[in-house]
């Protein structure tokens, strides 16, 4: 009986490609965010609103990840920014090689912000580095204020929390203060924005903050 010591990361292949994506973004002066949330929290609406609010200030490109259909890419394409759709065909998260391959078909000329919209899922995308500068987690008020406690790994790995659908608060049994408290108990470094894609509340401060993060 003999034992071989291996000590190799199970996700090492993904990590190597994520690192090369990261170097690619850096060398092209692109600031990149990985948008993660549960399905239906408003990721694509946030992308649309971000483009509408920021388009005159800096250039944006989008990678859309979905289990099926190119519906989201079509919504973004209507706003005249470079967009590519990744269809995972059932897979529950994006991986770094998918992002690398999709970069081939994206016009990144002068792009300063790349938004990668992940598959709607608060579990699996937490474990996969895509090479992004940071993860931005979105929670909508309709999901309830205990969401961060149920999916701690995602909230711990994110740098920004967007609380979306803030306009619906009068109709919901959701305390935004409690939601923020729960999120900060897991990750006190979280930068928090409160937004509504219907009223545009919070979009200016979100976009100003994005602008401050761009590589000069």
């Amino acid at each position, binding site marked *: *009986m*003999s*034992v*071989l*010591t*291996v*000590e*190799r*990361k*199970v*996700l*090492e*292949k993904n990590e190597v490609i994520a690192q090369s994506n990261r170097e690619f973004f850096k060398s092209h002066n692109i600031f990149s965010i990985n948008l993660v949330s549960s399905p239906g929290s408003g990721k694509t609406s946030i992308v649309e609103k971000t483009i509408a609010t920021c388009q005159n200030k800096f250039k944006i490109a989008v990678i859309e990840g979905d289990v099926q259909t190119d519906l989201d890419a079509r919504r973004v394409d209507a706003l005249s920014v470079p967009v590519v759709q990744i269809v995972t065909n059932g*897979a*529950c*998260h994006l991986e770094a090689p998918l992002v690398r391959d999709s970069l081939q078909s994206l016009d990144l000329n002068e792009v300063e912000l790349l938004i990668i919209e992940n598959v709607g899922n608060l*579990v*699996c995308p*937490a*474990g996969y580095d895509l090479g992004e500068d940071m993860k931005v987690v979105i929670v909508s008020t309709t999901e309830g204020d205990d969401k961060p406690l149920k999916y*701690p*790994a995602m909230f*711990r790995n994110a740098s920004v929390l967007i609380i979306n659908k803030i306009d619906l608060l009068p109709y919901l049994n959701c305390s935004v203060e409690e939601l923020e408290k729960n999120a*900060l*108990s*897991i*990750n*006190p470094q979280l930068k928090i924005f409160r937004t509504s894609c219907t009223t545009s509340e919070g979009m200016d401060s979100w976009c100003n903050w994005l602008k401050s993060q761009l590589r000069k």
Partner: protein
Amino acid sequence: MHELSIAQNIIEIVNDNLNDHQKNIVKSVRVKVGKLTNILPDSLVFSFEALVKDTDLDGAVLEIEHLPIKIKCAECGAVSTSDDFLFSCEKCGGNQIKILSGNEFLVSEIELND
């Protein structure tokens, strides 16, 4: 839920570390799984067993070593460990903490029947 593709990664790492003779005498593969990885052990073992069936690795057992969350408080310096999710210091309650352990996901050892 992506344990099948993860099991495939584990098998590739095992094959990468063994010659053809060794591949046929693997008794067990030991992986270390941190609490923060969200991996389902039963599903991972099931996927591993399904993928190695009728291959050189048929019969190899996947052994999972769970690693708890270990944190160090930036305020009082205390180290706390928990098998549950833990993001604040157990001594002073502070939440400015550094995660020392819990994110690991490694193929650590391969045991051979030789």
